[in-house]
């Protein structure tokens, strides 16, 4: 037996206990490294602990962080009100739109129900019309309600803003037509001067549910106040009608006589439903 073998045997005899101990540590280390390096194994062990802690944390948030967050938000909103309004505006707009659409649907359904229950020839015709158009009677009523309607018409001298003639298909109203003619001319002049676009003219003014349609001629202009949905179709029809009226019925003599002109305009637009 050689010297080295003897030494080996002696080591084994002397360190048997220690060897067992190191072997067990090595085994444990191997298991641990397997847990740490293999994700699934690790998560299997750690996840329940994290979940428990998270659950507690979430439960505690209102108590611990709540007041701080609320205070911070309050401060932020206070300091940047414009930004908040700016950000909320489109959202609120969408909400209002949605709400109106919903309410309109309810209104339409309500009208449909009521028209169905009440029989009259008018309603019968309406139902037929709606059927032909492929819409409900409620929708038809709403469309007809929103129809553009001529409320007032003014013929105004272009330069002076003096009223030449006017016509209103509705009952007499209290507005001072001469003042309106003057102010419309002042607004028109201001806009046309301000943009310095040569011969371009102001063509429409909108306010709330009304639109003022302006049609310019050489020495005068016609302003028609329209209630309801002023759309391209209506605009075209109105334009054509005013053009035809100007071409066929307005002479130089008319521009000098308010009474004569007023009679003419009334007669023409009374019969021509725009």
């Amino acid at each position, binding site marked *: 037996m050689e010297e080295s073998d003897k030494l080996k045997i002696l080591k084994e005899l002397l360190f048997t206990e220690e060897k067992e101990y190191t072997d067990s540590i090595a085994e444990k280390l191997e298991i641990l490294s397997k847990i740490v390096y293999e994700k699934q194994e690790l998560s299997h062990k750690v996840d329940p602990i994290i979940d428990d802690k998270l659950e507690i944390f979430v439960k505690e948030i209102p108590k611990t962080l709540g007041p701080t967050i609320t205070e911070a938000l309050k401060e932020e909103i206070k300091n940047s009100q414009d930004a908040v309004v700016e950000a909320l505006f489109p959202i609120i707009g969408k909400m209002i739109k949605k709400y109106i659409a919903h309410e309109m649907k309810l209104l339409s359904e309500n009208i449909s129900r009521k028209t169905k229950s009440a029989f009259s020839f008018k309603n019968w015709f309406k139902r037929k019309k709606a059927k032909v158009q492929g819409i409900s009677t409620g929708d038809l009523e709403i469309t007809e309600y929103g129809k553009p309607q001529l409320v007032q018409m003014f013929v105004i001298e272009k*330069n*002076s*803003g*003096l009223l030449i003639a006017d016509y209103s298909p509705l009952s007499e109203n209290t507005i001072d037509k001469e003042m309106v003619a*003057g102010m419309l001319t*002042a607004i028109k*002049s201001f806009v046309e001067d301000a943009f310095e676009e040569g011969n371009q003219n102001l063509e429409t003014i909108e306010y709330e549910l009304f639109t003022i349609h302006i049609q310019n001629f050489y020495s005068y202009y016609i302003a028609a106040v329209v209630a309801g949905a002023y759309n391209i179709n209506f605009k075209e029809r109105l334009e054509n009608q005013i053009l035809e009226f100007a071409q066929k019925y307005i002479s130089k003599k008319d521009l000098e006589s*308010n009474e004569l002109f007023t009679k003419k305009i009334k007669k023409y637009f009374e019969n021509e439903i725009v």
Partner: protein
Amino acid sequence: MKLSKKVVLLGHFGVGKTSLFRRFMDDEFSEDYKVTLGVQIKKNIIEMPDGRELSMIIWDTEGHTNIEDTRKSYLLGSNAFIYVFDLTREETYKNLPNDLDYLSKNYPKVVIKILGNKCDLINEKETLLQLKNLNINYNCITSAKTNKNVQDFFLDLANEIAR
């Protein structure tokens, strides 16, 4: 028979155009000075001696130190201009001859009236002498505050433009 006539008030800032306008239209006066921006328009219906009704549409324009800065579209189609100056401030009438020249050249058919306002604040003899020395011609001196000559001036103008 109803007539409509357009009358435009012109002149420097703070000469009392709006005060005259309010005195004639509503018989009101206020010491508060508010600058007119753009234009304001009001109407007064005047019963003429011959029975006709005259709708006087008055355009009270914002003041300008240079008459040429007045928006031209406001002046178009006018029947009369009332050029108002402040009797207490020489700078509001020292260019009057040039301004009148500009108006009569560009708007030859329009009646032009010159009015010295705030006569309640001056020594009439001294100021009128000064105006004479400066060769300033005027049609009337008024006070929007005391209503001196205001109604008569507008009624005379109504008679003239209704002819």
